[in-house]
C-alpha cells in the first residue's frame, strides 16, 4: 500500500510554501464567495464557496502535517519509534487530506451539474470515496479520480468560456485545465520526484490565475462604483 510521494529534498520547503499559498487562495475564494452568497442567497454560489473552503482545509492540513514531519526529521537523531510516528502521521494526514480534497472536488462537480438533488451529490461522494479507499494503490486512485472530476469541471468552464468569451471566464477555464493537468502529473510522482515539482508548479499557476480573476472582479466592481458616483 503506497502512501508516499517521491519529493526532492531541495523542494520540500518550496512545496510547503506552495501548499500554504494554495490554502490562502482557496480560503480567500471561499470566504469571498460566501460573502456574496450572504448578499444574494444564490444556491450555486453557496455550493461554490463550500467547495473552496473544503479545498482550503485540505491544503491547511497538508501544510501543517508536512511542517510537523519536517520538524521531526530535522532533529539531530531520531529513533525507530520516531520514524514509526512519522509514518503513522503521514498515513493519517494522507487520509484527512484526500477526504477533504474529495469533498471539495465532488462539491464543485455537483455545482457544475446545475441541479439540486442531494441524492446525486451523495452518490458522487460515495463513488469517489469507494474508488479511493477500496483500491490497493490509494494515491494513484485518488489522483486518477481527481483528474477525472477536474475534467468534468473543466467541461463546465469550457462551455462557460465558449458562451461568454470574456477574460474572466478564460482565466477560470485555463486555471481548471492546469489543475486537471496537475492531478494527472501527480500520478507519476509515485515514481518520479520531478513530477511532484511539476505538479506543484501547475497548481501554483492555476491558483495564481484564480487569484487574478478574483482581484479583477473586485477592481472592476470598485471602478464601476466610482464611475456611477461621478455621474
Amino acid at each position: 500500500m503506497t502512501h508516499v510521494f517521491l519529493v526532492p529534498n531541495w523542494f520540500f520547503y518550496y512545496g510547503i510554501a506552495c501548499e500554504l499559498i494554495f490554502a490562502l487562495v482557496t480560503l480567500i475564494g471561499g470566504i469571498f464567495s460566501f460573502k456574496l452568497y450572504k448578499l444574494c442567497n444564490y444556491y450555486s454560489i453557496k455550493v461554490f464557496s463550500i467547495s473552496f473552503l473544503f479545498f482550503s482545509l485540505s491544503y491547511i492540513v497538508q501544510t501543517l502535517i508536512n511542517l510537523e514531519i519536517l520538524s521531526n526529521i530535522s532533529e539531530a537523531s531520531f529513533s525507530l519509534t520516531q520514524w514509526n510516528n512519522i509514518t503513522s502521521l503521514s498515513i493519517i494526514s494522507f487520509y484527512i487530506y484526500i477526504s477533504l480534497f474529495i469533498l471539495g472536488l465532488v462539491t464543485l462537480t455537483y455545482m457544475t451539474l446545475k441541479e439540486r438533488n442531494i441524492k446525486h451529490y451523495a452518490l458522487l461522494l460515495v463513488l469517489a470515496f469507494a474508488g479511493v479507499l477500496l483500491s490497493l494503490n490509494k494515491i494513484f486512485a485518488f489522483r486518477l479520480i481527481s483528474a477525472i472530476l477536474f475534467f468534468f469541471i473543466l467541461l463546465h468552464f469550457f462551455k462557460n468560456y465558449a458562451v461568454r468569451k470574456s477574460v474572466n471566464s478564460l482565466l477560470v477555464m485555463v486555471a481548471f485545465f492546469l489543475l486537471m493537468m496537475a492531478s494527472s502529473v501527480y500520478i507519476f510522482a509515485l515514481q518520479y520526484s520531478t513530477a511532484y515539482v511539476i505538479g506543484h508548479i501547475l497548481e501554483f499557476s492555476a491558483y495564481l490565475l484564480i487569484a487574478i480573476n478574483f482581484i479583477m472582479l473586485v477592481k472592476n466592481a470598485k471602478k464601476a462604483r466610482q464611475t456611477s458616483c461621478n455621474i
Partner: protein
Amino acid sequence: MQKKRDRLHVIYDILRTIQEKNGNIRPTHILYKSNLSHKMMAEYLAELIQKGFIVESETKNGKTYSLTDKGYDYLAKFRLIIEFQKSFGLD
C-alpha cells in the same frame, strides 16, 4: 427566450435604468425599460423607496425617481455578483 428574472435581478434592472438616466427618471420610462406590469412596478418602487434605495420627487412634469447612495451601493454589489456568476458559470 429570456430567462425568468429573480427578485434581486428585477431590483437591479430598475436601479440600473434609473442610473442610466443620470438619476432622474419618470415612472413610464422605468415601466418601459424594466419590462414589468404597472402594478408590479408600483410595488417594487414602493419597496425601493421604503428601503432607501431611491427617492421620489415631485416636479411640475410629475413624479421622478433618483438613486440614493444606498442604491448605488446595491448596484455595485449586485454587479459584482453578476460578474462573479459569469466568470464561474454559476448563473
